[in-house]
């Protein structure tokens, strides 16, 4: 659980003519992560089997149909699984059928599209001519007169009259331009054309038709006819899609598998008579793998190396933790020898989310929604993500019970009447009869805020220190003890020093020696009176009074840290390494950063409170009819709570994720591992092992 699955590096060696059988078996076993080979003098990278080109051609065709039909294999759950044999038998027949049924129809659609386009083009020509209102027969076919028809940007009359008065022109406004027909004696044609061109003349070729109106009608009718034809073809394709989609995808899966197998030689090294494949197999599956593969005959499977740093990573987690791999691998895939932080994340992500949202009502909604969506989105990725939703919902309900919140708090400082603050306040209040009608921990009132702030800061210190410990282990495993002490150990001590400063500060504020709401009770003897919270010698008067034991320990730790730090950094960075001391402040900031666990929750609590408290009051004033008041108030409250819930899911989720990525993972988690991707594929539409 802590570390990725152990891998064994193996080589598979055999005679070259057995490669095809081996590829078949390897693909079925689906356990060997094949390494990209490097060529040498004797061994070259192999060439795909002959059938590969034919398979890939068919596959390409099939995939183009699939993409046209918008079939997404990840969204379709197969009703039945096909047998490989079954598919192999009808493969060529089916491919031909698809070419005819889908391919031909797609071509027809394309032809119809082109026809429509041509008609549209013609319309574009005819419409301006129609505006010109000159019959087409009069626009061409003269012997001594030249007629220019087209678009111009401005009136050309003045320019033309400079050449000759013997011309006729028809000019009509058309979509920010003019349509023009200029009739001119042939001898002036060239000059006039030049003038027109300076005015942005674009010629229109007058079509051979007798009447604009009737031609436009004809075109419109034709377009309708085409679109009907197209609709019919599309319906036919849709029908086919309903009937054939699973088989289509099964064939695609089959062909993809075949192509994988046919291209295996690209991942193998071959000589004239032999082949070698090198890869990784999970250690616990090695024996089974070796036996199964060698039973095909004339093969040797051998272990190459037990421990190998560059092995691919296969995370090895129990079901609950496995759901969170989506989140942790988004940051990075752990290296083979690195600790896998997913399990820590799975626990704390859930707790953090609950701590922030912390509302029975919202938690219940998150839970119900996740369970409902799990029934709709069946793909693995969604299922895992929604599982996280389920855990977070439960965690929110638990924390909601502790905080005493159900769609908002029923007790808010300054408003002691539960029935006024919350629509179900009386009931909620009675629920907590065992605790003097108070929530187990009230995060809204003063003591709650202070206490929770202190608790989350403690949590922050704890997690950051833990992060450095894990980092210590990782560096130790990779580079040895000395490196680990200097790189992570010194920071651990430094952050511990910071933690003691925060404790000393809290102690001087009286948190451990005064009753609520000012502290946690009389845990420790009280600090001296007038002790300054932050006793800095020379800066704060009477600092001696505030120098409690926490501060003394902190000073010792910080001195130790500083010495270690200088020893580590000066050799690396020179004298300027001293400035790196500032980095300690980063960790201080990161501890404070955990205060978001309190802050984000409080903001949503207050929004919920405002919704419950203010909305009914405003609605009562705005609407005089008593019956309507309840209805409108309920509608507004439901909408407002929905918005708050949306924020309540998005923000705690993101912030919780961020607390892990930024504040925790950076201390120890480098990542950069390769995901274990065995040769073969998980079959969805075809029966497993049915070869």
């Amino acid at each position, binding site marked *: 659980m802590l570390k990725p699955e152990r891998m064994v590096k193996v080589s598979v060696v055999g005679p070259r003519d057995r490669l095809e059988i081996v590829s078949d078996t390897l693909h079925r076993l689906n356990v060997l992560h094949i390494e990209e080979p490097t060529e040498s003098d004797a061994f070259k990278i192999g060439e795909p089997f002959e059938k590969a080109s034919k398979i890939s051609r068919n596959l390409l065709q099939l995939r183009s149909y699939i993409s046209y039909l918008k079939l997404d294999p990840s969204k379709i759950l197969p009703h039945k699984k096909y047998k490989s044999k079954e598919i192999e038998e009808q493969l060529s027949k089916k491919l031909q059928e698809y070419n005819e049924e889908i391919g031909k129809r797609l071509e027809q659609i394309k032809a119809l599209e082109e026809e429509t386009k041509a008609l549209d083009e013609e319309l574009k020509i005819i419409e301006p001519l129609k505006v010109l209102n000159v019959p087409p027969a009069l626009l061409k076919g003269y012997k001594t007169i030249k007629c220019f028809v087209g678009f111009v940007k401005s009136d050309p009359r003045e320019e033309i009259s400079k050449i000759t008065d013997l011309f006729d022109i028809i000019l009509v406004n058309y979509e920010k331009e003019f349509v023009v027909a200029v009739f001119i004696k042939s001898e002036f044609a060239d000059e006039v054309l030049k003038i027109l061109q300076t005015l942005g003349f674009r010629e229109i070729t007058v079509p051979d038709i007798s009447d604009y109106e009737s031609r436009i009608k004809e075109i419109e009718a034709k377009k309708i006819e085409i679109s009907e034809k197209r609709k019919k073809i599309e319906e036919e394709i849709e029908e086919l899609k309903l009937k054939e989609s699973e088989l289509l995808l099964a064939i695609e899966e089959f062909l993809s598998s075949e192509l994988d197998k046919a291209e295996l030689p690209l991942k193998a090294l071959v000589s004239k008579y032999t082949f070698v494949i090198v890869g990784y197999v999970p250690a616990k599956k090695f024996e089974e793998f070796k036996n199964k593969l060698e039973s095909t005959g004339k093969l040797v499977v051998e272990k190459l190396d037990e421990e190998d740093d560059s092995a691919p990573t296969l995370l090895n987690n129990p079901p609950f933790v496995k759901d969170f791999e989506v989140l942790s691998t988004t940051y990075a895939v752990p290296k083979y020898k690195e600790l896998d932080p997913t399990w820590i994340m799975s626990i704390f992500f859930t707790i953090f989310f609950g701590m922030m949202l912390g509302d029975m009502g919202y938690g219940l909604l998150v839970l119900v929604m996740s369970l409902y969506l799990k029934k709709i989105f069946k793909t693995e990725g969604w299922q895992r993500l929604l599982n996280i939703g389920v855990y977070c919902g439960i965690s929110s309900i638990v924390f909601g019970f502790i905080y005493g919140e159900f769609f908002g708090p029923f007790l808010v400082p300054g408003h002691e009447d539960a029935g006024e603050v919350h629509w179900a306040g009386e009931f909620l209040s009675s629920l907590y009869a065992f605790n003097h009608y108070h929530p187990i921990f009230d995060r809204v009132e003063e003591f709650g805020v202070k206490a929770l702030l202190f608790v989350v800061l403690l949590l922050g210190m704890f997690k950051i220190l833990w992060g450095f410990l894990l980092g210590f282990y990782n560096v130790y495993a990779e580079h040895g003890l000395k490196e680990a002490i200097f790189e992570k150990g010194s920071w651990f001590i430094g952050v511990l020093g910071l933690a003691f400063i925060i404790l000393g500060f809290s102690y001087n504020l009286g948190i451990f020696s005064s009753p609520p709401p000012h502290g946690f009770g009389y845990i420790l003897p009280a600090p001296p009176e007038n002790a300054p919270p932050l006793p800095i010698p020379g800066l704060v008067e009477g600092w001696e009074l505030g120098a409690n034991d926490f501060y003394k320990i902190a000073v010792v730790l910080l001195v130790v840290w500083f010495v270690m730090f200088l020893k580590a950094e000066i050799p690396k960075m020179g004298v300027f390494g001293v400035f790196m001391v500032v980095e300690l402040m980063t960790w201080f900031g990161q501890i404070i950063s955990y*205060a978001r666990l309190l802050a984000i929750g409080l903001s949503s609590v207050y929004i919920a409170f405002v919704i419950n408290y203010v909305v009914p009051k405003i609605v009562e004033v705005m609407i005089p009819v008593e019956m309507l008041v309840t209805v409108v108030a309920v509608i507004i409250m439901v909408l407002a709570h929905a918005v708050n819930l949306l924020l309540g899911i998005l923000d705690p989720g*993101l912030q919780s994720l961020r607390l892990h990525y930024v504040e925790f993972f950076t201390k120890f988690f480098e990542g950069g591992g390769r995901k274990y991707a065995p040769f073969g594929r998980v079959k969805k539409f075809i029966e497993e092992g049915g070869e």
Partner: protein
Amino acid sequence: MVEALIGDEAFIRGCAAIGASLAVGLSGIGAGIAESGIGAAAVGATAEDREFFGLGILFTVIPETIVIFGLVVSFMLIFAM
């Protein structure tokens, strides 16, 4: 006059309240400025590659720490009074 004000507890409370609100408000503006740049870049990256969406959202919320600092300061100001 000034000395009389400094001695007045209500005045000090008022100042603390103003300080607290400034702490949250200004740090909020700061975070907003920081997030605007990151957010724009994240949207751009998401347009190029849908896979980046999750990481983009994450990058966008990173400067939110600034507001948290402001909030902690405001808590301290309010509760210290």
